[in-house]
């Protein structure tokens, strides 16, 4: 009777922990902002990275709707990292092209 009681307490505590996780609003906001920032520039220059970011953000949104906040937080962080990579790749390509045209202008 006693071990069962201990396990029951543990399970209850774990459930409580899950239930008390707050919605990852700031992570979601950061991911949405970064994807929005990357979208216009990365469509041409880094489409694969942008598509990954968009897909991961969509999965994060779904997790939020279902209340799977911990999962949503991880997906939001990954979407943000994807979008930052896409934006940076687009920036690097843009500056490289500018440099090429400057050099050929001479």
């Amino acid at each position: 009777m006693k071990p069962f009681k201990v396990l029951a307490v543990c399970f209850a505590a774990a459930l409580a922990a899950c239930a008390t996780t707050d919605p990852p609003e700031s992570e979601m906001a950061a991911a949405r902002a970064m994807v929005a920032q990357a979208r216009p520039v990365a469509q041409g220059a880094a489409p694969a990275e942008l598509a990954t970011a968009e897909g991961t953000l969509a999965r994060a949104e779904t997790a939020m709707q279902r209340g799977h906040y911990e999962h949503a937080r991880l997906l939001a962080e990954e979407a943000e990292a994807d979008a930052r990579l896409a934006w940076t790749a687009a920036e690097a390509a843009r500056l490289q092209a500018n440099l090429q045209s400057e050099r050929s202008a001479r």
Partner: protein
Amino acid sequence: MKTPWRLTALAAALAAGCAISPAANERLEQARASYRGAAADPQVQRHAAPELQNAANALREAERLAKEGSYSELVEHNAYLAERRARTALLTAQARQSEADLVAARAERQRAQAEAREREAAAARAQAQQAETERQQAEARTKRVEEEAARQQLQQAAAAQFAADVNRLEAEAAGVRAKRTERGWTLTVGDALLFERGTTFQPGGERTLDEVARFLKKHPERSVAVESFTDASGAKDAAERLAVRRAEAVKFALVQRGVEPYRIDARGYGSSVPVAASDTEGGRELNRRIEIVIGPS
């Protein structure tokens, strides 16, 4: 007996948890490789140190969780973040290097353009300077030519005036003959028309001297040589002495009439320079003469 079985099952579960999933392991390997690649790049160290630090933080978290042997999902998550951030650091470094190169290339192009403009401006200035110098030289040449023409015109006018005056003198003063020579104009007067005897002038000779003096005062810039000649008859010494005295007498008479003495050079030449043969009285009379040579100004 129920309790030991349950404990065994729990221990087995914990032991299984000690190893993270193969997928997480693979992700961790990728993250380590990406991070090593980015960290080894000198451009990343120079341009993207904060971005590299973000990757390092995620990788350390992944390693820590992997060491605990649990939470495969979190290991995978952090390894994924580390891999993305390492690639982001690499691209950031590339972008910033391109930006720096772009700034340098633009500055170089502008410097070259400014240099070219400066060269063009300097060439234009030199050209303008050259044109101005040429214009001034042409102007000076034109001025010189004009001045020379004006001077010649004045000179010609003065010479014409002088010739007209000489001709009038020749017409008005009795016995004066004017001739143009290489020394200037020579006025010749026969001694007989000028002198009564010795150094005494005839009344007609006085009038002739009046005319000559007026003429000389009208042309004050010209030098005057009074030269007295005799004929070859009689004593040579006496004739030469008379020639000198007559030349001096003419000079004195001209000075009395207002001609500056320094202009007049008086000389007696005796019979050394005859103008006619001395074997007739007519020729001898021609040779006894006063020549007044009026030189150039």
